[in-house]
């Protein structure tokens, strides 16, 4: 079965705007930090263009909306990258980030998933490039 529900596809056209280059210091949640960077710079929509850093411990959500699991990866000092991430306004207009990426521990084991808000604190640093998205 390969029904393509064209009418259900959400399409948004736009263009890219300003670029934000940032560093997040230790002990901040990466989801909230990215939302705050957007709020402070009056950016409603954004995408992650590059992001490398480390976490104390990692908590990822893995699975579907109906059946998701939390994957806790104990640190300290987990290497991460945010490989896909976007920021969009919530119902009240505040920026809300959803960030997906990779995690590696000191044994070289690797994981991937969505970073759970409030449960992924920076360890040494997070280097980041965000770009504003301007829907038309």
């Amino acid at each position, binding site marked *: 079965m390969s029904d393509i529900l064209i009418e259900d596809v959400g399409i948004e056209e736009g263009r890219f705007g*300003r670029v934000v*280059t*940032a560093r997040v210091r230790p002990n*901040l949640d990466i989801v909230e930090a990215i939302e*705050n960077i957007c709020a402070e710079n009056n950016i409603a929509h954004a995408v992650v263009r*590059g992001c*490398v850093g480390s976490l104390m411990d990692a908590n990822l959500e893995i699975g579907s909306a109906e059946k998701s699991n939390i994957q806790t990866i104990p640190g300290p000092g987990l*290497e991460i990258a945010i*490989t896909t991430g976007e920021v969009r306004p919530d119902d009240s207009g505040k920026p809300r980030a959803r960030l997906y990426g990779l995690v590696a521990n000191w044994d070289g084991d690797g994981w991937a998933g969505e970073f759970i808000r409030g449960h992924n604190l920076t360890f040494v640093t997070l280097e980041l*490039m965000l770009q504003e998205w301007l829907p038309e």
Partner: protein
Amino acid sequence: MTALPEPRRVEHPGEEIEPRVLSEVSEPGRELRLHLPEGTDILNGLGAVLREQGINTAGVRLGGGSFKKFSYYTGVEDPTGYRVATFSPPNFPPLPVTLAIANVMVGMDEEGAPRSHCHAIFLDGEGNKLGGHLIPGECIIGPGGLVAWATAGGTAELQAHHDPETNFPLLHPSKAEA
């Protein structure tokens, strides 16, 4: 979803420095698709080609491609206590290594030379899934080359300097000198 415990915090050797987030905003910079050929060192190659293009700072996405030489670091405890962690000796997985996905932040070292910081998930030559910090000068692209997409920082730059909170030389954003 099950409730998670309060997250653990790290305690670094130095005092906390404010502000906790540093950011630099720029009008859009250049966007480049780069095809890096076989034999190129991925991280030194990225830094060199971007510098040749006049770009000092970029966020880079890449995935796919293979490596015929490859080495990576993980973290380990710092026995001296100077830092909360340090890098392991280089790890040498069985070749060829296939890149699953990676991100690179390209900036400058303390002397202004290109510096690329890359974390990746990859498969070793026996199919094991691994992750870590790729070592500049030690990861040579294999047959077919490798494609990377780079977004330049515009008038913002990242440059490494000593961070007295963590005792690491870390990339910090600033406005590029005109």
